[in-house]
């Protein structure tokens, strides 16, 4: 009843404002906005800025690893770079980019006038720049920034951490609050503001995957907050959660961290699954194969993600029964993930395919994510993991699922919806150039890492034995190429915002969904009157 009330008044409000639709002027538009499109835009800009910052740290790492010996940075700083690169990419680039896409697209896809909790939406965005200001500022503090890896295992991060660790903990707390609020907003919006007639099983897949992602966020972000709070206690208040000499256990840290960390990796991939499930049918001009099984597969992946965490810890000495349980559960995830890949391929099969930039990124997503899935399956085999664990094989694996998975998924989404956002078509030639350079650079950077890991190169080392030299050089060249190419993306987007061919309301002839029923660019307020879904 209350829900209907909110909904009705939202409709009534926007009707009353019919004559002053536009945004406020100046900086206050951005500081005070409660508009889902403005907030979505800010999330996307912020995440791209973080992507460049985290990426430039990766460039430092790859420059140091270009050849054996210490050339550019010292090990202390190298460790800060690997740590900050991971933290910024995970929490600053990938997660906010998906929240940005959710803000822009969820209301448009379900026919809602805005997010359900617009003021909280504003706050959850503006917390992020504060959190990252604190996090990045630690680099300039005495003793340097976090240098214990993005997984911050205790006691390296507690007893042996730099003085700035407490600031890092505070930043993680703020990011967590922001994520939880964002997730609550997504769930409230999807469950309450769908257009009449849009039942759960009629929701677009991006909406489904985000709904499930939001539940994952609410389940695990408090766990992350818990583990960093225990660190805070150990560092500043003399407790011994993770210190064996005081009755604690360093392995407890890893259990709690990965209970958060494993669902977290699905948080970073599920929304991309959803977006790709729109893009592939659009450019295949054929409905998505197996909609229902896609929904069930995402649900199954999300549930399984809670019972596989210790596969990150096969070498810590958990008892054999535990080892076997986590091995079997992890292998099981391959089944629903396989179903998704098969469905995408079946969607393309006997379609009528064209390859604009969104489709190129989506197809590369399917191929390369599958390769990352294969190495994931290999890592799941516990005995073999004793050889792979903490080597470059793992680095190759998670970059194969995150770069072509999350990042290519975001690029595909951006090109797919840019015409809707800006009202202009982007420059297709430049976008295809961006794709091919990214594709080649990414594979050149990360594929040789499989070989390095199998040959025995541990991860997180600033210098390496001579037999690893050749592939490291290849990898660095690829990384520089991939990194530099992303500036082209910035140029393409700016160019598209400033002008270009006028975009039709539905610029892609095979696209489906409510977002294509509103004009391009989408007006500041949309769906003040809910559409009818048949």
């Amino acid at each position, binding site marked *: 009843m209350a829900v209907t009330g909110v909904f009705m008044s939202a409709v009534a409000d926007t009707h009353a404002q019919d004559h002053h639709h536009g945004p406020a002027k100046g900086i206050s538009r951005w500081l005070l906005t409660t508009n889902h499109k403005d907030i979505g835009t800010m999330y996307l800009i912020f995440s791209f800025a973080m992507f460049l910052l985290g990426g430039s740290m990766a460039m430092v790492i790859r420059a140091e690893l270009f050849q054996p010996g210490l050339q550019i940075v010292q090990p202390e700083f190298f460790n800060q770079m690997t740590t900050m690169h991971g933290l910024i990419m995970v929490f600053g680039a990938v997660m906010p980019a998906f929240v940005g896409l959710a803000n822009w697209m969820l209301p448009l896809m379900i026919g809602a006038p805005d997010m359900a909790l617009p003021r909280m939406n504003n706050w959850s965005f503006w917390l992020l720049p504060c959190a990252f200001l604190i996090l990045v500022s630690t680099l300039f503090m005495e003793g340097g920034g976090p240098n214990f890896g993005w997984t911050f295992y205790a006691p390296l991060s507690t007893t042996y951490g730099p003085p700035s660790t407490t600031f890092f903990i505070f930043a993680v707390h703020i990011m967590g609050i922001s994520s939880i609020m964002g997730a609550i907003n997504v769930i409230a919006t999807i469950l309450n503001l769908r257009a009449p007639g849009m039942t759960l099983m009629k929701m677009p897949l991006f909406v489904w995957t985000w709904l499930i992602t939001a539940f994952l966020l609410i389940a695990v972000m408090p766990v992350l907050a818990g583990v960093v709070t225990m660190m805070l206690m150990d560092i500043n208040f003399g407790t011994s959660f993770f210190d064996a000499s005081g009755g604690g256990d*360093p392995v407890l840290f890893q259990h709690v961290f990965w209970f958060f960390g494993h669902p977290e990796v699905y948080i970073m991939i599920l929304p991309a699954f959803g977006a790709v499930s729109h893009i592939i049918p659009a450019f295949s001009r054929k409905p998505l194969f197996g909609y229902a099984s896609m929904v069930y597969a995402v649900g199954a992946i999300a549930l399984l993600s809670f019972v596989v965490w210790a596969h990150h810890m096969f070498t*810590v000495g958990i008892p054999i029964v535990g080892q076997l349980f986590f091995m079997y559960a992890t292998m099981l995830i391959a089944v629903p993930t396989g179903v998704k890949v098969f469905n995408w391929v079946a969607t393309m099969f006997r379609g009528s395919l064209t390859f604009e930039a969104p489709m190129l990124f989506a197809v590369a997503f399917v191929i390369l994510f599958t390769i990352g899935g294969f190495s994931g399956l*290999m890592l799941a085999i516990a*005995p073999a993991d004793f050889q792979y664990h903490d080597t470059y094989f793992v680095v190759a694996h998670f970059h194969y699922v995150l770069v072509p998975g999350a990042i290519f998924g975001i690029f595909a989404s951006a090109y797919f919806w840019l015409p809707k956002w800006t009202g202009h078509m982007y420059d297709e030639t430049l976008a295809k150039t961006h794709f091919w350079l990214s594709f080649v650079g990414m594979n050149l950077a990360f594929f040789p890492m499989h070989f390095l890991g199998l040959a025995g190169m541990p991860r997180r080392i600033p210098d390496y034995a001579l037999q690893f030299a*050749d592939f490291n050089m290849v990898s660095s060249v690829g990384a520089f190429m991939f990194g530099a190419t992303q500036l082209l993306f910035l140029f393409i987007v700016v160019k598209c915002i400033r002008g270009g061919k006028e975009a039709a309301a539905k610029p892609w002839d095979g696209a489906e969904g409510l977002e294509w029923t509103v004009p391009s660019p989408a007006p500041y307020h949309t769906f003040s009157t809910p559409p009818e879904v048949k």
Partner: protein
Amino acid sequence: MRVHAQRAGALLGGLMFPAWSMADWTLNMTPGVTGTSNEIFSLHMTILWICVVIGVVVFGVMFWSIFAHRKSQGAKPANFHENTLVEILWTIIPFVILVVMAIPATATLVDMYDTSESEVDIKITGYQWKWQYEYINEDFGYFSNLATPRDQIENRQAKGENYLLEVDNHLVIPVGKKIRFLVTANDVIHSWWVPDFGVKKDAIPGFINETWTRVDKPGIYRGQCTELCGKDHGFMPVVVEAVPEEEYNTWVAEKKEAAERERQLTQKDWTMAELMERGEKAYQTACAACHQADGSGAPPAFPALKGSPIATQDMAAHIDIVVNGKSGTAMQAFGNQLSEVDLAAVITYERNAWGNNTGEMVTPKEIFDYKNQQ
């Protein structure tokens, strides 16, 4: 399966990448020299080929669609969007493959966890940034430090063949015997890995992990620490030397004798010059990684010793911090890591080197008494 996989791999590799078969372009895991490492290699190749076959099928269908069903080729889209039979099949088939894969994996894992009936027990302790090996039944032990000179790391000298994979004291084991490793750490988590053995185990402060190996082929095997453990994580290699049993027995006897000699040195009367000479060496291996060779440290984590109150004022405080460490910081308790002679030498050295000219010295006997009082 293993032989098949190896042959197929070699063939594929030979056909596709003739230039890459050189050592520096190693593409695959090596089978290693132990039963465990061979079983792991076989699992690795099996799962790899399963992935390759699935990949060929899935990507094959996809590339066929990309090739044949393009709009520019005049393809008209079909309109099917579900098929229950197909969907059930591609859920069940992968599941069956996984079950088949899980069986040998479980067998190998059970074998890897069986540390019973060992013939030699060695305790391995990870330190920032070196390994300690203790032969617990023979009553001796020693540290194993990186032997690569700083000049090679900083590119002032050509890099040697075993750059970063060489140590001053190898871990020596006899061939053909089941060796049990008891793995722990003194400060942060480390991980002890020798790829050729298929042995990797985390070294966790306060806990002891067990693992084992049996090496049949004499030789030198190299590995590294694989858990980020701070600044010099990349600089603490593992080198194991497997030798025939007789040679091993001789080596153990020598080591025991040397340990006994070392203990007697405590009772000897040491001069300042002798202590300074020994202290410089001990300082380089035990202290210089953090406090630097010239005592300048790397503040704030690693304070300078040159001109510091600890090294120039109260001697008792100096002995206390070296022997017992300082909790809550990276300063370890060296009382159990170094002999009384080395402790005395290091403290004497620190009080008289780099312009810390206190002229004071402490003898091994005094350190011995100090430790006994505690």
